[in-house]
């Protein structure tokens, strides 16, 4: 077996080291290993979320290496710190591509960081795997999106509220690109579906003063709140929400960026009973997830929860492996061609996922969850089958004119 691995490794060496494209992205496949870049914020305000993604990527790489690697080569991760600073992300991605000669880069979290690195990957014709749900309305030939786009998260969230008979909404979000774009989509949906949007408020990122916004929400008498606040602002918002006497039973809040890790830090006394929209929870049933959760806890500690972006990151490494193996090469254009030809699937912790060739997004199952008193989120609804990604919402007549 070992001899066979060595043989294929040698084969890959001769076939690949010469096939690098002329346009810049040279991939170093000369040794017995191949490098990949991990680009996450290990410091700064986003570190709380992005460190968990990095840990999850490392877990996937360790597992693949233990099972013999990719095309017989061990994966060697090169981790860089984006430091929650978008220009740094661009700089580090250039370094990973031209200095480390990585075969692909996994990472980024905020839309701002993704927008900053996008031209770098396109110019160098190198690959980025992006693991976080985002606002859609984007497509790049050199990015694979393994988190949800709007029609796999926000739209199902709205469908769920509609099915529950919630006819009026109040929108609360942080003041930057994701919530503003998401709310534009929500308003278009509401108009088309007979729902009313009674108000819309944005707080600066990191803001912790929510008493007035909560007073407004309360006075509006809306039947539900759609929450696109990011990070720590959620702590102050939910404390204020409870203090004002608002409850999940009377006026539920649907959040799209609070996952298990954040629930832990906000405190279940404020969140129990509230709703979230994602594609994966730690409690999602299935053997693949049991294995993932067990392996993650064994590596990083029993008290560490797994979350949607972590799962999407873990899955992205396996999807890359599947593409490379199908292409029989690490060459970026061949890997892309393998994905475009279709049939790249993986039994992910969230269930079976498939790469959609034309959009380079993946088919994902939408899941609405309820936060429990133990800090875990349990599913109350799912879409039944993976939803085809539609980043530009072309399949939704009401979304015409949004992009």
């Amino acid at each position, binding site marked *: 077996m070992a001899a066979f691995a060595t043989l294929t490794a040698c084969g890959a060496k001769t076939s690949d080291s010469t096939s690098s494209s002329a346009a810049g992205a040279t991939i170093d496949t000369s040794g017995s290993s191949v490098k990949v870049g991990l680009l996450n914020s290990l410091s700064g305000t986003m570190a709380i979320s992005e460190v968990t993604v990095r840990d999850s990527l490392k877990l996937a790489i360790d597992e693949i290496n233990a099972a013999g690697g990719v095309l017989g080569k061990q994966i060697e991760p090169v981790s860089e710190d984006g430091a929650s600073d978008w220009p740094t992300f661009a700089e580090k991605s250039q370094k990973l591509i031209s200095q480390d000669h990585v075969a692909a880069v996994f990472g980024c979290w905020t839309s701002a960081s993704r927008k900053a690195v996008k031209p770098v990957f396109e110019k160098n014709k190198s690959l980025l795997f992006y693991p976080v749900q985002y606002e859609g309305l984007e497509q790049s030939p050199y990015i694979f999106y393994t988190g949800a786009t709007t029609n796999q998260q926000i739209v199902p969230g709205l469908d769920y509220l509609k099915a529950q008979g919630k006819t009026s909404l109040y929108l609360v979000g942080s003041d930057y690109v994701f919530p503003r774009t998401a709310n534009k989509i929500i308003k278009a949906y509401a108009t088309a579906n007979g729902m009313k949007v009674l108000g819309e408020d944005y707080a600066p990122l990191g803001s912790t003063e929510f008493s*007035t916004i909560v007073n407004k929400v309360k006075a509006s008498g809306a039947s539900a709140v759609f929450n696109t606040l990011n990070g720590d602002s959620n702590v102050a918002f939910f404390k204020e929400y409870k203090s004002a006497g608002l409850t999940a039973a009377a006026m539920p809040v649907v959040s799209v960026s609070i996952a298990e890790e954040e629930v832990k830090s906000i405190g279940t006394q404020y969140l129990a009973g509230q709703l979230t929209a994602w594609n994966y929870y730690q409690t999602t049933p299935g053997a693949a997830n049991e294995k993932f959760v067990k392996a993650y806890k064994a590596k990083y500690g029993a008290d560490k929860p797994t979350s949607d972006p972590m799962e999407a990151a873990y899955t992205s490494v396996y999807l890359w492996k599947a593409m490379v193996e199908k292409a029989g090469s690490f060459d970026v254009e061949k890997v892309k061609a393998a994905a475009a030809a279709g049939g790249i699937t993986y039994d992910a912790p969230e269930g079976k996922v498939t790469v959609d060739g034309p959009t380079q997004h993946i088919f994902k199952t939408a899941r609405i969850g309820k936060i429990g008193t133990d800090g875990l989120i349990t599913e109350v609804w799912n879409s039944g089958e993976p939803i085809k990604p539609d980043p530009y919402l072309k399949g939704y007549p009401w979304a015409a004119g949004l992009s």
Partner: protein
Amino acid sequence: MTVVLSQLFTGISIGAVLLLIALGLSLTFGQMNVINMAHGELIMFGAYTVYVLQKVISGAGISLLVALPVAFVIAGLMGVLIEVLLIRRLYARPLDTLLVTWGVSLILQQAARDVFGAPNVQTRAPELLTGSIHLTDDLVVSSSRLFILVLALTAVGALSVVLKVSPLGRRIRAVVQNRDLASVSGLATGRVDRLTFFIGSGLAGIAGVALTLVGPIGPTMGTNIIVNAFLVVVVGGIGQLKGTVIVAFALGVVQSMVEYTTTVSVASVIVFLVIVAFLQWRPQGLFTLRTRSLA
């Protein structure tokens, strides 16, 4: 009507938070002319004190009560340490205190990150303070906000008693009004400075305890609030306790009223414009100190 009343209370509660964070600063900046950029980090010390105490004391209510005096002493001693090691050498160069304490604040932030980790942490609020009090059917007042208001008013009361009545207060006022004259009159000005710093920094610790009831605790929480605290002290009139109190509540109420009819960002802009206009009219602030020094 209910909306106006509940926004009024919101404004007063925002004012109470502002007052608590500005109170210590009105002593160290207002009275002593030291621009202490590390004041926000002293607030952070107070907040982390609650966090640490909750690891030891399981009851959320008891740990909060214990945290108040403990945070006062810890933040106060930290302030004295900064005063003795650095600020003491810079009383003649107030602008340099800004640079030096800015450096201190960065060091303290990094220290907090190393000890407690970069992610923000949470404390448990006592059950009593997570709910709300119904004044009428519609008018609901949050218990934690009420607690902060009482705490702020108590701190103001205690501070003004100390300044007006106690021998220490008389010495502080003497040093503030004319340091040289106080010194040749036999006052140990160095000792007075240290005690003033102890009280001012201790009040920052108390503010930190109160802030744990409102939002998350993190290494950078100080930087987010320090600007507002300076605004309150400057607009109130440097060295003027009553100015600080009035301005804190006034800004809170203006902020909440404008915010209700517009948005958070617009309200912040309007508050800033009001402040700029006010300082054009009265550059010395709401109240001024009559001093016998030549400056």
